């Protein structure tokens, strides 16, 4: 992306984000209180985040690869299972990948 396109991307996404937040404060609550809306929103959030995990961990451009990010994600999952705080999870994953690469793998 050129700098101009990137600026447009940043600004449009920012305005839409604020617009979505403001909409929640302005529309009548019962419009959004239906089970179907709540359920679908929750599921969309789950799908987006899980999909991003897969892309961030296995994608290298358009190729699917196994490198140091995979054991790093496993360490993160273990830390989450042990109820580690968010920042600890993120730091352990980064340290795992950095360590493996320092040893010459992935």
């Amino acid at each position: 992306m050129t700098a101009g396109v990137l600026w447009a991307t940043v600004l449009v996404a920012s305005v839409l984000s604020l617009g979505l937040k403001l909409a929640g404060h302005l529309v009548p609550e019962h419009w959004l209180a239906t089970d179907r809306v709540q359920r679908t929103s929750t599921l969309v959030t789950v799908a987006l985040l899980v999909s991003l995990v897969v892309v961030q961990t296995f994608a290298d451009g358009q190729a699917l690869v196994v490198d140091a990010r995979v054991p790093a994600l496993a360490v993160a999952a273990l830390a989450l299972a042990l109820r580690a705080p968010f920042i600890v999870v993120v730091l352990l994953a980064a340290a795992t990948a950095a360590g493996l690469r320092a040893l010459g793998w992935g």
Partner: protein
Amino acid sequence: MSVAVATGLYGISFGALSVVAGVSVPQTMVLSLLLFSGGSQFALVGVVAAGGSPVAAVATSTLLGVRNTLYGAVVAPLLGVRGWRRLAAAQLTIDESTAVAVGQRERAATRAGFWVTGIGVFVLWNAFTLLGALAGDALGDPRSWGLDAAAGAAFLALVWPRLAARPAQVVAALAVAVTAALVPFVPAGLPVLAAAAVAIVVGVVATPRPGARPGAAA
């Protein structure tokens, strides 16, 4: 306050990842100041880093922000604010402020929890984004610091508490399959949107059966 501190530290990762993705320091700061929704910001930068289109970047970021609309509808009646305060409340409506606000029993504690958490996260998130962005310029190869793996771990940590229910687990499995199947064949950014589309279909079509119990055999 622990919520605000953890989020502030998380901001370092975002700032660093953003600049190494090719987003400038001013652009990175606009994201943290104006967009101000961690998941959406990471997603936008992730699509840019992967060489995705502007439309895919905006769409992914925006879809992730839809949950803030639902949060707004929940907290607005509790806060009861008008005018410019309503705009400020809207901008501060995120996972953390909503969770703290609805976790209080007293109306006064709800309002205090929302504003303290929202403002605390906003200030720390932006301060640490700037720190991370400036450091990211100096870090060199982000991979040698494991920052790419940190992004995946951050998304996993965000989704982890949402995976308790069976429908969420089913959608998560579908999202993995759809994403892995599409990555080699479509431009960056689209596999994530396809996963979201699958979730919308499941959410709209799948009507809970009367008498069905959570955890019953699927």
